[in-house]
């Protein structure tokens, strides 16, 4: 009987509010940089929007892609392609049979720019002016489809949709593709391009966005007593997952292992987290069990922590419950304080941060926490990075989404 393959990370790629690649994003995160800025447009004035800032992408795709690529792909796909190309190159462009190569690239919302642009065209110019590429551009599986085309990945091209947990769930499914023997290599991650006045207005209407227009850089402040909502971000994070055997056979550089995947649903409310954290706790415990890791060996958690009043504390209590007596030894980081919330890209970018934290033994900081919420009992990494211990270590990455989705991934050193 064959054993279940171990899954390792051999390539990383990203384009984010902090930088156009992983290296610039990671160094900006270690330096405690905010990616939030006042938007360079007249939306607030024109539409009466209560929010005029966002964590917009640092390097515009037009600077990286060809003109036809930017016209044939929704921005969400453009970000994913940029990140996937970097990840693939970073992995050493592995030689792999296309039928053993998979893609799982998710988006929380899909090609909303394309959808709304086409609707504008229809209303202004009529049906004959709606472009034939509209549907292949707007569909939420467009990013995974284009990544599959780019690399000839034919083991399967998937796009799991679970709002702000999508990017993490994609990586979890990529791990399962390798474990179940369907693929040797999987390009997995998430992407989002939702900085458009309609979704911003809609998020603002649901009272989930920070309204700190006068100081965007300090607006995303998870666990601070004055937090007032999340900051919308955009971008993509993509990893190359590989069976440990396949990576070893080609002498690939291994960043870390994705050792455990935990999934659950709240079944409670479409947007609010279940207050006892039952679903979050089950996801974390399942991920640790799957990884064969005891809670006391977890040295770092990259929290979902979006900077909302209720969500941050529910998660903090869930983490405390899972970690039990070793909770005070966990270095807790909330990197959305710097990147903003990439929605469907968030879980993937934060998995990259968690992988790099384990690989480099350095937990990234949480910024903007002037006055920590007194209810937070965990050890928050504030303002400057913190060294993680030597030896065998494990870290958790949490991602939760509207709809009641909970995803926890366990990362172990290689």
């Amino acid at each position, binding site marked *: 009987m064959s054993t279940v393959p171990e899954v390792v990370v051999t390539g990383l790629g990203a384009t984010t509010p902090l930088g156009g690649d992983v290296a610039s994003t990671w160094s900006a995160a270690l330096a405690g940089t905010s990616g939030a800025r006042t938007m360079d447009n007249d939306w607030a004035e024109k539409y009466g929007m209560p929010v005029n800032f966002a964590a917009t992408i640092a390097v515009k795709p037009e600077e990286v892609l060809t003109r036809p690529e930017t*016209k044939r792909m929704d921005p969400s796909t453009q970000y994913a392609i940029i990140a996937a190309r970097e990840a693939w190159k970073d992995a050493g462009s592995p030689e792999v049979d296309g039928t053993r190569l998979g893609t799982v690239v998710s988006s929380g919302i899909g090609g909303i720019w394309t959808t709304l642009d086409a609707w504008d065209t229809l209303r202004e110019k009529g049906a*004959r002016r*709606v472009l034939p590429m509209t549907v292949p551009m707007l569909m939420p599986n467009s990013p995974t489809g284009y990544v599959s085309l780019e690399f000839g990945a034919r083991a399967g091209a998937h796009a799991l949709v679970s709002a702000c947990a999508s990017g993490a769930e994609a990586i979890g499914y990529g791990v399962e593709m390798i474990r179940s023997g369907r693929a040797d290599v999987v390009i997995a991650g998430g992407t989002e391009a939702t900085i458009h006045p309609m979704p911003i207005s809609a998020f603002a209407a649901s009272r989930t966005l920070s309204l700190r227009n006068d100081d965007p850089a300090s607006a995303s402040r998870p666990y601070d007593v004055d937090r007032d909502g999340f900051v919308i971000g955009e971008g993509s994070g993509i990893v190359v997952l590989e069976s440990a055997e396949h990576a070893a056979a080609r002498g690939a550089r291994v960043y870390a292992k994705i050792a455990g995947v935990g999934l659950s649903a709240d079944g409670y409310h479409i947007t609010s987290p279940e207050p006892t954290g039952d679903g979050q706790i089950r996801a974390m415990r399942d991920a640790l069990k799957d990884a064969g890791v005891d809670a006391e060996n977890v040295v770092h958690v990259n929290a979902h922590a979006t900077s909302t009043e209720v969500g941050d504390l529910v998660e903090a209590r869930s983490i405390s419950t899972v970690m039990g007596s070793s909770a005070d030894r966990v270095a807790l980081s909330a990197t959305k304080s710097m990147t903003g919330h990439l929605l469907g890209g968030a879980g993937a970018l934060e998995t990259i941060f968690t992988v790099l934290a384990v690989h480099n033994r350095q937990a990234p900081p949480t910024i903007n926490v002037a006055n920590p919420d007194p209810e937070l009992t965990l050890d928050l990494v504030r303002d400057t990075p913190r060294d993680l211990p030597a030896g065998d270590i494990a870290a958790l990455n949490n991602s939760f989404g509207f709809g009641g989705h909970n995803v926890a991934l366990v990362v172990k050193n290689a």
Partner: protein
Amino acid sequence: MAYTEQEVLAGLAEIVAEETGLPTDTITAEKSFVDDLDIDSLSIMTIVTHAEDKFDVTIPDDAAKDFNLVGDAVNFIVGAQA
């Protein structure tokens, strides 16, 4: 005001260049959309949609499917102008 054949060719070349990334000066009347410019059917329909908008003409699908050369499209558009 009607567009001249030269103006239509120049305008169409710009549309094709946007869609394909080819330099406009390589998009000449005698080039075949499929064989020379490597344009698929979705791209041809995209080009037709942009051309209808730019030149304010209607290009029925039956006409568009007979466009082999860039010049075929230019001739149709010149003739279709009111």
